[in-house]
């Protein structure tokens, strides 16, 4: 029988198993098996029927309700894809490969990162949630900087410093919430005072003024981590410098976890103040994020930064959806977080392929992808259309729901702004993607270098129709990496048409919790 403790123990155990000195092959096996087993455990736990509506563990400090269940699915789901991809991407043989010691450390931090994120979503105690979110920063800083290049160190340092400061503001907010709870507490309840479920049940007695102030600090603090503008400046750096599988995790699930942190306080603030104060703030910062991200998307020269700014946009959209509220808006926002996680991680995975093929992160260096590698070209182009909000992909559905909720809620101006900028972003993505995939292959072959970050990608297969007289690049096709792309594509296409019944029920239940239902 799965419990929360076991779901948390698994990644932690595998983190240390990965550290055991062993041949590369074994480390890789442990690494991937760890992610798969954690995922099977968590998914089995979530869809095993015995937990509804919520289950507690560890004296009520840990808790799983539908909301945390959705995020646990995301973390472990994207975690598996990312681990399998990393199995092909980082664990290569040949010259320029990473040393076994570094790989073991990488594998360890990867699982620690998964553990801290799972702890974030499973914590009922708001203090523990804070500790876990700070833990995600610490665990992933080493993942951002795997190769010790100047730019990666810079990105990791900014990430560490900015997120730690942001998070300390959130701690201030938590102290304020605790303060407002202590003022109303009866004796004997002191152990419960930071528990979200307890606070929610006593929300009416909390001082609304203090909670408003606390929410501002939380929004700025966790908003930094979630990549909301104008606190997003660490995000494009970290996302572009991290190796592809890590970028996928950062963008797909780390931002989502931080959003969950904001959402928990949003529910609490709304229940305590009974006003639309936190809604308005969420809509404001959400719309602002979309607006701020747009020019950077339109004028972007680096395809990984392009994807990073698109994450700012989508987190903004999700925040706006949470702010619009109503059953529709909340359902849409949660679905959007889910769809974004899978679509964006698919794009980051294909960015790893792109980097292998072209040895460059510049959009201008990537040309004629469709003719050079048809498989990758099709996946990348479709995924770019999907992230831009093209039907029939899943992102379209959730964007549509969020905007409908906005119009139903009478937020016409915000919705109009969102629509306008989403259209601009759509055009921008279409332009970038078509430039990269269509047209003739690039004639000036990029330089090859020996370090692991720019490996020689040996084509085992014959490549058809290469323009000019250039040497056909040799690529050792990694079955692991390719299969991740295929699976990701299937997921985002299917989710556009059909959400499986149990998952749909789960998201609806999560939406009800986000709407403040006290179960």
């Amino acid at each position, binding site marked *: 029988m799965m419990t929360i403790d076991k779901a948390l123990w698994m990644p932690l155990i595998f983190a240390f198993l990965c550290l055991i000195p062993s041949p590369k092959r074994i480390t890789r096996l442990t690494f991937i098996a760890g992610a798969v087993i954690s995922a099977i455990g968590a998914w089995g736990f979530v869809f095993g029927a015995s937990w509804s509506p919520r289950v507690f563990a560890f004296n009520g400090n840990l808790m799983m309700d539908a909301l945390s269940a959705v995020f646990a699915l995301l973390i472990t789901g994207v975690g598996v894809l990312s681990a399998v991809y990393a199995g092909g991407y980082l664990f290569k043989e040949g010259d320029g490969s990473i040393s076994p010691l570094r790989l073991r450390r990488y594998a360890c931090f990867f699982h620690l990162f998964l553990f801290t994120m799972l702890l974030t979503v499973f914590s009922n105690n708001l203090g523990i949630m804070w500790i876990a979110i700070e833990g995600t920063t610490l665990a992933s800083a080493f993942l951002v900087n795997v190769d010790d290049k100047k730019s990666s160190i810079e990105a990791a340092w900014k990430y560490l410093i900015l997120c730690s400061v942001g998070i300390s503001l959130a701690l201030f907010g938590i*102290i304020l919430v605790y303060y407002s709870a202590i003022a109303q507490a009866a004796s004997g309840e002191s152990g419960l005072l930071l528990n979200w479920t307890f606070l929610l049940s006593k929300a009416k007695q909390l001082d609304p003024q*203090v909670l408003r102030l606390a929410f501002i600090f939380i929004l700025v603090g966790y908003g930094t981590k979630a990549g909301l503008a104008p606190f997003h400046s660490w995000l494009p750096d970290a996302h*572009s410098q991290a190796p592809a599988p890590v970028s996928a995790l950062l963008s797909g699930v780390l931002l989502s976890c931080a959003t969950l942190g904001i959402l928990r306080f949003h529910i609490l603030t709304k229940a305590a103040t009974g006003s639309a104060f936190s809604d308005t703030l969420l809509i404001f910062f959400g719309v602002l994020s979309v607006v701020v991200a747009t020019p950077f998307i339109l004028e972007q020269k680096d395809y990984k930064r392009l994807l990073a700014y698109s994450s700012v946009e989508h987190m903004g959209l999700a925040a706006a959806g949470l702010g619009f509220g109503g059953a529709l808006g909340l359902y849409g926002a949660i679905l959007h977080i889910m769809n974004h996680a899978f679509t964006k991680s698919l794009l980051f995975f294909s960015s790893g392929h792109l980097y292998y093929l072209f040895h460059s992160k510049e959009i201008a260096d990537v040309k004629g992808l469709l003719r050079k590698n048809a498989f990758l070209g099709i996946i990348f182009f479709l995924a770019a259309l999907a992230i831009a909000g093209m039907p029939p992909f899943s992102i379209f559905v959730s964007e549509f729901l969020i905007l409908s909720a906005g119009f139903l809620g009478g937020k016409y101006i915000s919705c109009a702004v969102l629509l306008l900028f989403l259209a601009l972003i759509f055009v921008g993505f279409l332009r970038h993607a078509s430039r990269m995939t269509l047209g003739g292959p690039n004639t000036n072959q990029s330089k090859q270098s020996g370090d692991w970050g720019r490996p020689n990608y040996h084509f085992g297969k014959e490549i058809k129709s290469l323009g000019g007289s250039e040497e056909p690049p040799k690529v050792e096709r990694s079955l692991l990496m390719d299969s991740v792309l295929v699976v990701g594509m299937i997921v985002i296409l299917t989710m556009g048409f059909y959400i499986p019944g149990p998952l749909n029920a789960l998201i609806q239940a999560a939406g009800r919790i986000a709407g403040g239902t006290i179960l």
Partner: protein
Amino acid sequence: MASLIHFLGMMLLIASFWILVSSQIGACIRAYATHSFLLALITAVVAWSQHIEHLIIPALLTLALKTIVIPHVFFRIIRRLGIRKEVESYINIPFSLLLAVLLVFISFYATGEGRFLKPAAFGEFIPLAISTVFFGMLMMTTRKKAISQVLGLLLIENGLFLMAITMTFGMPLLVEMGIFFDVLIAVMIMGLFVFKIRDAFEGIDADDMTVLKG
């Protein structure tokens, strides 16, 4: 009792100023250790005067970690880096002193009489805590060296700790311990990164890091 509390509060403010005005990184670290020591004393006094036994553990941890272990780690780092140079700042020290005084005024004004934060006891520490947080932010934004930025972060954390101790008599013990753990790990990881920065950038000036833009 009250006079002891006032005295400790004053000393704490002086220690915060000391961190800001120190022109040598070593003096900065010693000032931080003093600041943490005073924090541990205040925690102990609060614990003793309000009969809150569980606060003794955070007090001891503050004494052990922030007064001894973390400064020790810092001294090791600067010895291995071979830093003798002075603290470099974007603004000169008299000006940062001026800003600091202003920040203290702001925090006293913002939390003064009639505002809605009314803790049961030790209300006079709230402006002190907030100004400590402000000082930390000032340090993080104006100092060039990566190591001073870490000190700024620790100063922010000290301010928040003081806030939690005096407003709410400390967070639940479990949370308090978790925060200590996080701070310790953060210092270690940031320390490692300081070495990486030194190796890659041939110096630990954070403003050399300008590769990533747009």
